[in-house]
């Protein structure tokens, strides 16, 4: 449970960083002329779309991890037994990836930025703009769904974490926790429509980076340290 809490906090803090891209969208989604209730609904739908994509990616990554880690035909242990070799390797890879992402958050790996943010993001974002002003409730939902696919280091980091859990349910929960963590800031952005002070955004980046770094270290540790099995359970198994 503690792990989900850290993920939630990372999502929350990270969303201040994400205000650059997603926050801009949330602002552009704007207010509904039909009043406050309609505006709130509009933004909830947008965030629901986003959350759906995150959850889907999480479930998929988790199932992927499960497929890699489970020998054909075996019943799926879902972290109840000791970690097998496949899962150890996966955990180490995912952990290293998360650490790299965290370092990028701290500005220590500038080259990684091109990989994480450059790929097709601008084209996709540009083509999505037509949805921002489209009427109806389906448009913000659709926008949220696409928005969730926009390349973002945070999403990569937690998708990696989801894969290392080697279970669809755990992967789903990981990304759900992350997605819910991003709710407050983005709902706030949509409602208030005003950017936060840069200083706060910087603090958010540091907090998010620290959370990812912590999770990354734990994940790597789960793969390397034999005694970490029980430790890992405490982190990843729902209470």
């Amino acid at each position, binding site marked *: 449970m503690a792990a989900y809490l850290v993920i939630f906090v990372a999502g929350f803090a990270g969303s201040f960083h994400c205000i650059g891209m997603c926050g801009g969208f949330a602002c552009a989604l704007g207010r509904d002329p039909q009043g406050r209730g309609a505006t709130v609904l509009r933004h909830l739908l947008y965030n629901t779309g986003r959350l759906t*994509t995150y959850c*889907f990616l999480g479930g998929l990554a988790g199932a992927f991890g499960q497929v890699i880690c489970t020998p054909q035909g075996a019943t799926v242990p879902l972290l109840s037994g000791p970690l097998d070799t496949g899962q150890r390797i996966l955990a180490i890879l995912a952990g290293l990836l998360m650490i790299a992402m965290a370092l990028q958050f701290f500005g220590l790996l500038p080259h990684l930025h091109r990989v994480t943010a450059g790929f097709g993001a601008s*084209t996709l974002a540009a083509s999505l703009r037509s949805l921002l002003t*489209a009427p109806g409730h389906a448009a913000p939902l*659709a926008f949220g*769904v696409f928005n969730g696919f926009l390349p973002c280091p945070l999403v990569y980091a937690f998708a990696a974490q989801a894969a290392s859990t080697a279970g*669809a349910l755990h992967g789903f929960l990981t990304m759900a926790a992350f997605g819910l963590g991003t709710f407050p800031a983005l709902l706030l952005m949509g409602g208030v429509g005003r950017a936060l002070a840069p200083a706060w955004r910087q603090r958010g980046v540091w907090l998010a980076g620290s959370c990812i770094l912590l999770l990354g270290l734990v994940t790597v540790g789960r793969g390397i340290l034999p005694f970490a099995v029980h430790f890992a359970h405490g982190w990843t198994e729902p209470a």
Partner: protein
Amino acid sequence: MTAQDHALCSHCLLPIGRRAMRLTVNGEACAFCCYGCCIAYQVKHGKTEEWEAAWLLIRLGVGGFLSMNIMLFSLLLYSDAFSGADAEMLPWIHLLLWLFATPAVIILGGPFLREAWLHGMEGRLTSSALIVLGVGAAYFYSAFATIEGSPQVYFDTATMVLMLFTAGYYLDAAGRARAARDLQPLLAAESEWATVVIGDGEYRRPVREVDAGVLVRVRPGERIPVDGVIMEGESHTDEALLTGESRQIAKGVGSHVIAGSINLDGPLLIQSRGVANATRWAQICRSVRDALIRRSPSQRLADNIVGVFVPIILVLGIGASVYWAQHLSFDRALLIGLAVLVVACPCAVGLAAPMATSLGIGRLARHGCLVRDPAALEALARIRLIAFDKTGTLTSGQARVVAIDSDGTSADAVLAHAAGLERHSEHGLARAIAAAAAARGLEPVAIHDVRVVPGRGIRGKSDGRIVAAGSAALMRELGWSLTPNLAEHGRQREASSHSVIYVGWGEQAYAALSLDDTPLPEARSTVEALRRRGVRVTLLTGDLPAAAVRIAAAVGIETGDIEAGLTPEAKRAALGRRRHDHGMAAMVGDGLNDAPVLAGADVGIAVGSATDLAREAAAVVLPPEGLRTLPWVIDVARAVRATILTNLAWAFGYNLIAIGLAMVGVLQPVLAAAVMAGSSIVVVLNSLRLERLPEPVPSAAAESAPASRSTATSNQKAA
């Protein structure tokens, strides 16, 4: 708009079938080769206020929302998250999945159904039919399973296959559009508009409706829509698409501008000098368009294979289902059949050849090299021998004064007199003499009463004396003697096939001017570059052997590879013999007298002026003075062929392996869809490597003599 207008996909510019997906986007009628291009075009070109693009994205988004939730629930089901006490919830979860799946299948599957229907009406079974069939089977089986309460449903497979194919098609189309970048300016021209100035008003008119004499305004950065003369303004233009050389040419009032060149920095007012449809630019556009619509041999091969492929796959898929139904459970058998249908989509095979070909044609066209037929591009890659015509191909085709043998006076005096006479003549040799005098800064002697003696030369009077330039016969006619020295020089020059003009005044011939065609500066390096590419180079000419040997020596062709004194028909026969000995042969000519041999070669290449474009004989047309690009053109052709071969090998290999895996039941349908979508992206990416080919080498002459080149081009235009 007619069907012909829509022979190319509006998005990726690849050729499309008779019944294409049609749409009106931004008031423009568009046709698309596939659903992916249709989505990509709308997303890219739909404006915010336009409902269409947004509506498409909403449908995809909502479809995605539904299918992702279905997938998530199904993943949880598979991982036994609902095991034990939750087992009685199963029917309700199935019902929920059905509820989600129905709108998702309708929203995401609609376009595939439409495409399958369109192609079916055309009598073609295509990949969309396979998708519709597979998805339909999975959906309806699952619906019945839900009603019956059986433990397995495949709503996730049905919706995810649709979602993966939609995403795959979209990515595929995005890559293809990037590949079409070089073609875009060429093909957009057809729908280009011109700003016509009438009185005080400015009006937008389609370019094809602009007639001669009309004033056209062109802003900086715009493409000049018509051939014409500048009436107002100064600017630089870039004629890269017409001459193959990207550089700036200064233009002012009175300068000629050519349609298709780009106005770089100043606003211009241009008076149109011809109907816009007849410009070289318009011809290039049509030529490229025609080439794209034609199908190359490997493309036809791929088309034929795809034609028989889909029915075979249908049989295999159904056969696999029937076979496995007897050995495994019915729904496992159904999934296997579904995987076969989904994985066998032949999109990658269909894309392999046209993708690489259109990239190559676009790349060449951007440098002024036109390929009129994709088959020629494929043949060019396999060329073992290139035969050159001499005059106008390896040489400039314009005579130059190469020697002045004078006896009793200075060369300058001879040239000044000769130039004074030849000012009154339009003969090709006369221009060469005037140019030689100008090059030495000589003032032509003033001459009156000039008379041209047909076939012999020209005569006139200066200061009461007769001045004459012409053949030995003209000198004899005038009763002038040639000194033995002069006569001997003349004979020697003529023996090596120079044209000799005797010049004299008063009562005596004083000098012999020798004129000859000179090899183009780039001819030697071109011949060397071709040899380095393993191509044998020969010279086939109608000229005298002595001239042929001299030019061949100058450009580096060996004596054994020369045949001279050939009639056009004999040239064709000579090429045929050499083709027999060496393999596929190309002929390079200037297109004026070489039509038979150009048409008879495996690839006819015209190095041409504007009129050559109208000639049907050559399959490849290089820009004026484009000889130096020839090795590069061959490089591009070879790269295109290699790309087509690797594309086809990949596409077939992939399909064979994937179908095999699917038939033995190893490949899950969803995984099959993901791999399928990836496979045509591989073809696109492989083809995009063609963009990394180096550019052709710039000509040295282009930098040293820009002025003469631009006037040469406008002269040809005027002719």
